[in-house]
């Protein structure tokens, strides 16, 4: 196991311990009388998320793949429970779920060609055909489009995280690079979310896209970009073959793509008229609320690494 991965996980736990102390000790003293239930819940949930992530990257590749597949299942289920589905399409949705075990089986066998075309070609075409067989044409186009978009975001994009574990880089690395790459992109994406949130709370004034996400500000976004680039300089050499100027570029890409993923899912939720995608993670909302940025950063990071390294 790459010592950089272990050091990073130890550092995350350290930071979490500090954050927990701040939330439970400092915050009640600074603003007594206020109820900080959501902040506390949010912190507690981070402990669970970090522990699951640590287990998922530290042990064997099969376990990591099953973990990410399960994450996709939860996210797709959340998405399909939110969108208006047609009663006639129940069986089509069943087939859509079946694409998850297959997609992750291709990943487990390391079959890149199949992994990259399976959902956008075979699954998309098959589901359309299956929906036609049912013969309900009212709302057909909307139903196909929504289902395919759901598979794209929740299964195809997120499954790139798992293929990072199978990626063979041309640059020599002392350890299998997979766990470090997964940890790098997940950590950087989530920290970017947190940093944009914190900078926005501290300095936020000018709104970026008030119609989609009224809490997103230029100050939050730019603060997030700066923080993420800085973190990328630290985490890049520790977890990945990225060095020097490329760390800067990757930090910038993650910060921008993470922001876009976040507001895209916000737009989806706004269209559906809900605030949170679910209530699975106390203090955070649903799975989709937490992995929204990853739907963009994971595939972009994956293809960057595959092309350049």
């Amino acid at each position, binding site marked *: 196991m790459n010592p950089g991965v272990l050091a990073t996980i130890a550092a995350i736990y350290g930071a979490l311990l500090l954050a927990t102390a701040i939330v439970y000790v400092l915050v009640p003293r600074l603003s007594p009388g206020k109820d900080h239930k959501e902040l506390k819940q949010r912190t507690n949930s981070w402990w669970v998320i970090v522990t699951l992530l640590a287990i998922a990257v530290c042990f064997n590749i099969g376990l990591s793949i099953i973990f990410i597949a399960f994450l996709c299942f939860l996210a797709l*289920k*959340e998405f399909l429970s939110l969108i*208006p589905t047609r*009663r006639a399409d*129940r069986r089509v949705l069943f087939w859509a779920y079946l694409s998850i075990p297959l997609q992750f089986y291709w990943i487990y066998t390391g079959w890149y060609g199949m992994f990259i075309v399976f959902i956008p070609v075979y699954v998309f075409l098959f589901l359309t055909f299956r929906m036609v067989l049912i013969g309900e044409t009212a709302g057909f186009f909307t139903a196909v489009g929504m289902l395919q978009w759901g598979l794209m975001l929740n299964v195809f994009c997120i499954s790139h995280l798992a293929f990072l574990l199978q990626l063979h880089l041309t640059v020599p690395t002392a350890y299998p690079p997979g766990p470090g790459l997964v940890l790098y992109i997940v950590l950087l994406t989530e920290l970017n979310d947190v940093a944009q949130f914190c900078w926005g709370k501290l300095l936020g004034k000018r709104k970026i896209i008030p119609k989609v996400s009224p809490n997103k500000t230029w100050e939050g976004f730019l603060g997030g970009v700066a923080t993420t680039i800085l973190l990328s300089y630290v985490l890049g050499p520790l977890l990945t073959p990225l060095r020097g100027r490329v760390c800067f570029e990757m930090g910038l890409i993650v910060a921008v793509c993470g922001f876009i993923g976040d507001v895209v899912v916000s737009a989806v939720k706004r269209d559906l008229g*809900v605030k949170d995608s679910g209530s*699975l993670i106390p203090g955070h909302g649903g799975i989709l609320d937490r992995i929204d940025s990853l739907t963009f950063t994971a595939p972009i990071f994956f293809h960057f690494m595959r092309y350049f390294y």
Partner: protein
Amino acid sequence: MTRLLRALFVLLIVKPISLIVLGINIRNRERLPLKGPAILVANHNSHLDTFVLVSLFPLSRLHHIRPVAAADYFCRGPVMTWISKNIFGVIPIARKKETRLEGSEAEDPMQPVYDALQRGSIVIFYPEGTRGEPERLAKFKSGIAYLSKKFPEVPIVPCFLHGLGKALPKGEAILVPFFCDIFVGEPIRWNGEKERFMNSLESSFNELTSQLKLPAWD
């Protein structure tokens, strides 16, 4: 022995299906009764309704949780009857006159429910009487009013379930995973008159239904 079998059934099948395959979003969980006697009243769209409601309680309380079920459906043949009573833990009651046992004309078909409440059970009751059309609330039958009149002290907790009619509607064999929303209402008690009682129950459900901001299923 049968208690252990039921616990295993709930632990290995009911809870994994409810909590992992489906997943539960529950509002106002604290309104659920921890101790009996109590009556949970829910809308009924799917066999999964009972799965999900049973999963809300810890395994240690399981022997107190008793769903009321139709004898004409759950007691077809001796094997099915044994499984229903011992593994599913249901209280079978006769919905139709013909299915009531010979010679028990005089006996109240709800007698087994009274017995369970007297033993301190938490009874699950579906006042629509049947699963009906998926994701549509049918008119409540008044059996629940008679029950409440007889046990005016027992709290009646309304639970509105949404999503399970999509996951496994009546007549379908394939389960399709969907998150299930549960809205628990304020407990209501017998208020002295059948009509008023049914009205307060229905308005409680209407209030819970209005909390759901999801599109209709059609």
